[in-house]
């Protein structure tokens, strides 16, 4: 488990992370969403031991992280700005990783190279941006990490490769309980990948939740009656309205109330039309953030 406790990271006068706290449980895929400059990359660099926090503590499995080789050997980090040795090919990089990372598996490397269909003998300089990202992902996964960090990983990947990468990550999580942290400025990118999501804004976590709960916690109801009605019809029956709009005899509202009870209550009202629709993650976020007093558009693309 990764625990960040009241972490602040300053770059001279600029505060990248401001008293940030979060807990990332083992074996989950944790998404970090936020606009540019929200502190996502800084957080990843902090939990990979590249940066030392200006204040606060970060622990990995209860051990301090900074300057702790044992803790660092459990993780692999695929940054947004990739680095490969000069004039290296994947084979050379694998040799390098093999020397540096104690758990690096050549078998896993060869296996992944076959999955991604990359030429390990080709100079990495000849690779496209997406291919380089695949190569970095392969190398990171071949270290058999317990913790795996991806910074803007899906940038530059075509949809097919994006799915392949996601599938490989899922396999690792399933087989080896790898804790994966993925950052993105696009919520849609992480919606179907992560177990948990945190929203970063101006160096702090403004919202953190389990995605499945989040998605099922709210839903849209579309309902129509023959007689005139207003929102009180629902509120009087204990249905909590997050948003409400009405056009003539048809209204649409979003509620967080228990789905089964709500539907049962609404059926008793003999509506002309009753539809219950799930919300997209983005819609859930919009409403949750608005409830917290944030304008979602300011935080996420």
């Amino acid at each position, binding site marked *: 488990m990764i625990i960040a406790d009241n972490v602040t990271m300053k770059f001279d006068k600029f505060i990248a992370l401001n008293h940030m706290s979060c807990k990332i449980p083992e074996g989950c895929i944790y998404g970090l969403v936020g606009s540019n400059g929200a502190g996502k990359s800084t957080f990843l660099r902090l939990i990979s031991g590249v940066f030392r926090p200006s204040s606060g503590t970060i622990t990995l499995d209860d051990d301090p992280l900074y300057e702790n080789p044992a803790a660092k050997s459990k993780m692999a980090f695929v940054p947004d700005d990739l680095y490969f040795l000069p004039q290296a090919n994947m084979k050379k990089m694998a040799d390098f990783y093999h020397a*540096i990372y104690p758990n690096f598996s050549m078998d896993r490397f060869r296996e992944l190279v076959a999955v991604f269909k990359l030429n390990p003998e080709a100079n990495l300089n000849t690779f496209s941006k997406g291919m380089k990202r695949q190569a970095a992902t392969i190398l990171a996964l071949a270290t058999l990490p317990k913790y795996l960090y991806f910074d803007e990983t899906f940038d530059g990947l075509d949809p097919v490769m994006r799915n392949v990468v996601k599938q490989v990550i899922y396999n690792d999580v399933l087989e080896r309980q790898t804790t994966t942290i993925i950052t993105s400025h696009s919520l849609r990118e992480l919606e179907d990948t992560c177990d948990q999501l945190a929203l970063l804004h101006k160096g702090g976590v403004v919202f953190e939740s389990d995605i499945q709960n989040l998605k099922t916690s709210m839903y849209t109801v579309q309902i129509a009656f023959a007689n005139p009605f207003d929102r009180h019809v629902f509120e009087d029956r204990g249905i909590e309205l997050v948003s409400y709009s009405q056009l003539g005899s048809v209204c649409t509202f979003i509620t967080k109330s228990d789905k089964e009870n709500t539907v049962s209550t609404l059926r008793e009202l003999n509506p002309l039309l009753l539809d219950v629709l799930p919300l997209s993650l983005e819609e859930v976020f919009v409403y949750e953030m608005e409830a917290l007093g944030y304008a979602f558009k300011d935080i996420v693309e």
Partner: protein
Amino acid sequence: MNKFFNPKIYLEGIKKIKVTGIACSIIIIVLNAIVPIIYGIANFRNTISIISADKFAYPMALIMFLAPLFVLNMFSFLNKRNESDFYHAIPYTRICVYVSFMAAILTWIWGIILVSCAVTTLLWQVFPNVQLGFSALWIIPVSYILVTTFIVSIMTFSMMLTGTTFTNLCTAALSMFLTRAVGMMVTSCMSTAVWAFDINYSTGAFFSIDFFLPYAILKMLFMGDVSNLLSQQALYIWTACITVVMLGISGFLYWRRRSEIAGMTATSPVMHHVIRCLITLPFALILTSYLISSAYSRSNIDSTVFILLTVLTLLVYFIYELVSTKSWRKMLRSTPLLLTVVAGCLIFTAGINISYQMIVNDTPDPEDIKSIRIYNDASDNTYEDLTTRYSWISNDEAITIAANGLKKAMESVKDGKRYWNIYDDYQTIDVAFKTAGGRVLGRKVLLKREDAGRLYQLCEAAVTDSSYYSVLPDMSEINDIIVNVQSFENSFPDDKRTVWLVFTEEYKTLTLEQKMLVKTTPMKVPRAYAGSGSEAYIYLSVSGVYNGDYFSSLYTVPDCMPKTQKAIRDLYFNYSNEKEIAEILAIEDSEQVTSIRFTCISSEFGTVWESLDLSVLPQSTQDRLIGEIKAEKPTDGTAENLTEMVFIYMDGDYYESVTVYFTMSRDLLTELMPYGGY
């Protein structure tokens, strides 16, 4: 172990800089290998010659300039954000990465030096007419290993402080030369302000540029001054200490360094300003020194020089800011901080002025002086001068003369007078004062000529015969021994040492009168051929270093030292002539021989050296000469008229020479003398 060093990281470090390493290896090893090959081929027919440190492998000096490339290459990741993050994320402590990478750098550099020395040594050995000097074998690898490690430490230190290649290099140059530059300015200003103050005596030559190993090595190469390197143990110790400290600080900076500094000019904005100001400071100090020197020497300030130096200083300041930040706005915004440089110059000026006041007013009275000694910076001191004549004395009269001379000197300094154009009837002497408080001052004292003579007389009188004539240089203090003739200067180092040991043992058995004879240097070198009539003698010339001062002493080897004379003869006789004789006989046409130079040690005539024109020698004399060269040497070493003879002849369009050592009969020597000349 894993915390401080990791073999895998070390091997990755070796691989990381292998391109630089291989390229440098080729350059250094090949260039050094060419030196003995070319020398050996060009001098194949010449007499045996010794290769001293300066000639041994001079292209090795390139390694001093190539060493920073290893550091730049190895730690280049500190200048790029993504690389920096990558290396900071690997599962090793920073100290482990630093130590392992540093070990890789030093392995390459030290390896290149040692392999190159080994290859070069082997190649020198290929040529029979070449002998390696004992000093070359250790001074080259030791000096270069130390100097390159020193340069590596400086370069690493600068890379830890800054985050771009430009600032890396500027800071390295700053770290390397700032103290030297300030030292030179201090020396320059103080020597102008107080000509009677010997800064080198007071600071143990710390401010001298000689006390800088890279310079000392270059001086050895370009001026052939090996003795400076050989004698200055303090220089090696100082350089080693600085190197260790700089490597330690660099390790600490690496440990503390934040990855995000990559690509930034310095570890912090404050550090950036400090570096910029320090880079400008030496240039500003040149201007300041010029102004200070003009003020103290009461000379006019040349406005052109003043403007040029001012513009140069400003250019350095602003161009550094512009190139490092690539921002005109930042360049302009840095202007107020130029006052920091001005403040530095003011502090320097104040320091010089305070030093000036302290020195000119530091004229102890005779009763406060415990002892004095005359010392001389000139390089013609003898060993006896350094050990006895210039030793400390407590004679009251001498102390009073010296103390008054010091007062006189400082008065003239205060008056702004220069001794060389005002005091015709005065002279200066370098005198060291030891005060009752234990301080030691090195000053030039200004004395009337009769007082100066008296001071010398008193110092001489303090030297007892027993002390003067009992000292001889120890082998460890000797750099070179010249046995009798110039042509032997660089030959037979081991045999010459044997001669010296025989000489010192035999010297101990001599009476005082005999010792006086040994240490009395004749006024001129005698010549024994017709008309000279001077006294003949055999001599040993010994040079070396005593307590950091150079000496050169000449000792005659009179007849009362038969063992030494025999050892010198053995020195000549130990040399085999076979190859050379064959070569002389192979010169088919004697017309090819343009001249002959020979040196002969004769008990009857002393040392004789002549230049002969072979064509004027009668054929019978030529035949006799060849016959005596071919003759067997006496095995008992008692033969007289030991001769070194150099034949110079034409081989195609080139002059060649061949040298033989043989015993010349008295008759032949007498016969040859009339044909000799300069």
